[in-house]
């Protein structure tokens, strides 16, 4: 497979340079902290802070989720690599306003180990109160009884959005932790991929897949899914993906199955080179099936928000809404990754 040509400078510096660019995208709203972190400029005193983070290369997340009514800061790793503990510490110090910091990030071994080490430094050396909520929305990465083995994928965007709004109201770290945990518990995703992204430093794809196959249940770095199926149409694939999510709500004892009248947030994510056109075509079918199941779509998100370079593929995420989550959703927000006005479409 030939190397992909990317518009970059030094292939080993892409993570540093993209964070520098991201700071410019915020045009003064965010500051560049330490090695490779971002923090909102004006975090109110005493705010319970929300810190996100993870490997770079998935832009616009995670670091694009810093913003108004969203995350207060992000600790950014190198391409597909969790941020080292020092960076986590720097970001933690930058967002801390004396009322605790919630870490909210995807459940990957590298992230857990590095954020934990960062938290130890922050707690032991700086006396900062840190709590962690892991994102594990990928239902294909382990059964509901083994959520600790699940990956965090595109569902992180609604989850961070909801937690970001919650963090504006939260009086204590406990309150924010509870809200973030609820957003996680209520959000489930399934991803598929048709072709890999590549690592800028090597130009090599992160995995291999036959030209005429779709990887069902794949992760956002190209981690293996549950099976490979023959390439098919949007209308055939959509119910397969939705059924995996529906089934997870049924099988998981921690949450009730989706039933008639339930309200959901629905998110179609592109993993990179899959076009908005394709996302919209899948959305069309998905909406039909959600409606047929009696679900009410509270709001819709669509776009390439959680990507893996030029990887082709999509994911669906469903967040089961309740009054609390709806209130968080309705808050406006503004960031490089995701912005909205007050309310919801059609509301």
């Amino acid at each position: 497979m030939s190397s992909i040509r990317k518009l970059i400078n030094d292939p080993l510096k892409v993570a540093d340079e993209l964070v520098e660019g991201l700071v410019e995208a915020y045009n003064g709203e965010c500051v560049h902290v330490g090695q490779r972190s971002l923090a909102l400029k004006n975090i109110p005193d005493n705010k319970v802070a929300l810190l996100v983070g993870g490997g770079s290369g998935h832009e616009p997340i995670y670091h694009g989720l810093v913003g108004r009514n969203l995350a207060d800061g992000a600790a950014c790793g190198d391409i597909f690599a969790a941020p080292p503990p020092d960076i986590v510490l720097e970001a933690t110090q930058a967002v801390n306003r004396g009322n605790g910091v919630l870490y909210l990030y995807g459940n990957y071994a590298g992230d857990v180990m590095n954020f934990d080490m960062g938290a130890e430094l922050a707690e032991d050396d700086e006396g900062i109160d840190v709590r962690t909520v892991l994102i594990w929305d990928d239902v294909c990465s382990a059964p509901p009884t083994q959520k600790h083995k699940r990956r965090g994928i595109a569902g992180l965007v609604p989850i961070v959005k909801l937690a970001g709004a919650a963090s504006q109201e939260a009086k204590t770290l406990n309150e924010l932790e509870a809200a973030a945990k609820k957003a996680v518990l209520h959000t489930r995703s399934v991803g598929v991929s048709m072709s890999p992204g590549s690592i800028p430093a090597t130009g090599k794809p992160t995995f291999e897949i036959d030209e005429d196959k779709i990887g069902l249940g794949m992760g956002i770095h190209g981690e293996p899914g549950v099976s490979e199926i023959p390439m098919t149409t949007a209308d055939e694939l959509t119910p397969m993906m939705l059924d995996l999510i529906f089934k997870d709500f049924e099988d998981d004892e921690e949450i009730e199955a989706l039933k008639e009248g339930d309200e959901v947030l629905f998110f179609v994510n592109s993993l990179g080179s899959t076009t908005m056109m394709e996302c919209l075509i899948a959305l069309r079918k998905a909406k039909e099936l959600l409606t047929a199941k009696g679900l009410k779509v509270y709001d819709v998100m669509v776009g390439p928000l959680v990507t893996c370079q030029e990887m082709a593929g999509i994911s669906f995420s469903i967040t089961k809404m309740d009054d609390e989550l709806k209130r968080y959703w309705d808050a406006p927000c503004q960031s490089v990754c995701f912005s909205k006005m007050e309310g919801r479409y059609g509301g």
Partner: protein
Amino acid sequence: MPKETLNAAEVREMLIQVADKIIESEPILSEADRKLGDGDHGIGMERGMNAAKAKLDTTEGEPLGKQFMSVGMAMMSSMGGASGAVFGTLFRNGGKALGDADSFGAPELATFLTAAADGVMTRGGAKPGDKTMVDALKPAADKAEEVKDASLPDAIQAVAEAAEAGKDASSAMRATMGRAHTLGDRSIGHPDAGAVSVSIIIGTMRDYVMG
């Protein structure tokens, strides 16, 4: 000519050789990670070892335990990712356990590897059989304890073979954690990328000792 013990300067020289070897092995390591993970293991190790070399430029004259620890700190703060944490911990915990030892022989090799393996297993929660670098590191540590009364050349030979055998054995394992766990049986047949790194690290230490 094999070396019977290493002093701090030699440990430092050995670590530079380890770093160079890992940097040179980037394509093999990335390829191994492409099979089971996200294909960046070699890149991360290369980044970490470049940082380690830069750090080793400033550690001349420090005790040998510090030499190992410096490599660990440099890796930990430059790499990130799973391997930044585990390989950083390997060198840092291993080096710390050496205290102010001023010569590195077979007993110190055992002390280093046992503390390294314990540290990694505590940090990441992986046990032998989970198909991680632990499957090369833990057998190497166990072997080192077993042969700690032998000469350094004999000990490191045996330990490098154990690491190599552990790496090879990881091929036959089913991943139960990490990125590869969703592969289930399909993860069988490829060695774990981190285990390959461990076998290269210990193999290069052997090559240095054997001269």
